[in-house]
């Protein structure tokens, strides 16, 4: 059972999360958007964590499932095909299509591990992106590098997620509405992840990660359990992709480059592979720090030197890289590692 103190803490966090967008909106709507992307990337990291953290399968092409979800949404809710299905129909379709894509990637790679698996998944991610780039002829499916425009926002009854509404003196802008929706999805995904981790399936994933032959000898159907990891991870990616398309109102292959896969993987590793809260922390940190740097590097230089010495974009990546290197040096298991991982490292040291 939870103690009163824990309940109080949870209540405080909940209140802070509910109040957050209004505080941010008073600074600038851009920050609400940045927060939304942070939540989106947290969802992606949690999805990838199932594959990499729980099952120990290194996936460098995870952004492909994000892309599949985004394009499914874009094609079913835009003037491109003239289809305008509601989001609660499209999101499950996107998750299903991404799930199938996950199995398609998983099935031929069942015998691969480590670096070999990483190379194949990397290739898969690129193939998906290149398909999106080129499926504009002979039948114009994806509109090629120009991408798909004017994607429908979410709409619940009269509530349009691209317009502002006001209730009781509070202005709910589009990004704020998306924020609450994302927060609900995030909560659901965290609960599902925690349930999975403590389940028979979760234990089977850990066993496969540790020793595949021993896992099979213990009666674990490694093929199905691995495919399940790919499929579940991919579904979460697909849902995140659908929300991304709606929030942006525009998708193009450019959003789904290898860099994004690596960024998501960095969030998982930096936060602490396998630990849900670590992954959340990693994703939030890596989403916000670059943005904070973007907004502080330029004014700071102007104030200090009177002019811009280093391009903010360059410095941003430099500081970002340094942060990653330092984390891996001083906290090799991530900022907030999984219990088992930490246990092992501690005992090695002892």
């Amino acid at each position: 059972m939870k103690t009163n103190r824990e309940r109080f803490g949870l209540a405080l966090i909940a209140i802070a999360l509910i109040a957050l967008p209004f505080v941010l909106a008073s600074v600038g709507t851009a920050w609400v958007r940045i927060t939304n992307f942070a939540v989106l990337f947290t969802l992606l990291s949690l999805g990838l964590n199932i594959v990499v953290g729980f099952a120990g399968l290194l996936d460098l092409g995870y952004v492909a499932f994000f892309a599949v979800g985004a394009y499914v949404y874009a094609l079913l809710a835009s003037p491109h095909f003239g289809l305008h299905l509601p989001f609660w129909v499209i999101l499950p379709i996107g998750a299903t299509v991404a799930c199938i894509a996950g199995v398609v990637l998983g099935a031929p790679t069942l015998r691969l591990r480590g670096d070999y698996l990483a190379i194949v998944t990397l290739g898969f991610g690129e193939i998906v992106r290149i398909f999106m780039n080129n499926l504009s002829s002979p039948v114009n499916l994806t509109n090629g590098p120009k991408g798909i425009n004017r994607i429908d926002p979410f709409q619940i009854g009269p509530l349009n997620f691209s317009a502002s509404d006001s209730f009781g003196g509070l202005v709910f802008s589009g990004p704020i509405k998306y924020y609450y929706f994302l927060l609900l999805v995030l909560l659901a995904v965290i609960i599902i992840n925690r349930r999975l981790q403590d389940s028979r399936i979760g234990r089977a994933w850990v066993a496969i990660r540790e020793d595949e032959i021993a896992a099979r000898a213990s009666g674990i159907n490694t093929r199905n359990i691995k495919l399940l990891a790919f499929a579940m991870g991919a579904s979460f990616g697909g849902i995140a992709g659908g929300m991304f398309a709606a929030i942006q109102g525009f998708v193009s292959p450019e959003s789904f480059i290898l860099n994004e896969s690596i960024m998501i993987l960095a969030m998982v590793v930096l936060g602490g592979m396998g630990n849900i809260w670590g992954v959340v922390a990693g994703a939030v940190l890596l989403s916000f720090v670059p943005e904070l740097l973007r907004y502080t590097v330029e004014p700071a230089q102007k104030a200090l030197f009177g002019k811009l010495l280093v391009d903010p974009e360059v410095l941003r990546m430099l500081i970002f890289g340094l942060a990653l290197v330092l984390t891996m040096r001083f906290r090799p298991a991530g900022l907030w590692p999984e219990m088992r991982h930490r246990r092992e490292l501690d005992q090695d040291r002892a």
Partner: protein
Amino acid sequence: MAQALLEALNLQVHYGGIAAVKGISFAVEQGEMVCLIGANGAGKTSTLKALARMIPSRGEIHYGNRRIETLPSHELIGKGLALVPEGRGVFARLTVAENLLMGAYHRNDANGIAVDLARIYDLLPRLKERSSQVAGTLSGGEQQMLAIGRALMGRPKLLLLDEPSMGLAPLMVQKVFEVVQKIAAEGVTILLVEQNARLALEVCSRGYVMESGLITLADSSVALLADSRVRTAYLGE
């Protein structure tokens, strides 16, 4: 001859174009403890992996009264056939207790599992002392004991043991073999693969000698220990 619990007929294992096991036939009877000895690369481990369906093979494998060569490996433990893999394959980041419970993954009789866990802690008291310790931090011998204990959690009728003495100190090897003998005394049939031929023949009733993918000798342990070819090639005399 009594009904064989396990019988291989013309078993072959190929890795690419290379034949590791070139068509061997042998049998293990109910309640027996039999060893497969031979030098490095003779095909002993490949044979055991093929029996446990970890690698593809040709030929027939009879277990009980059915053929198992078409079954997937994860179904075998439920049928009483357990493999203790070479190199001790324990789940390094799980605790000793969690490792043992993984061995009962296919079972859902909570009471039976608890009984078996207590029984294994009795048999291997060292594991009880270390039950909450992470398996990766155990000594080599303790890890071997854990791998054996995990296999026992599946209540096997037939235990396939792959090189339990590998990389262990002599004293630890003795202890592991004492445990194996106790398990055999409880009625579990054992097929043991060993490089340490003397030790294996001392605890087993019969043995097969493998040489570059073929069984070259098959006899009782007493006869093999007395055989001049075995003595020169495997017992260092």
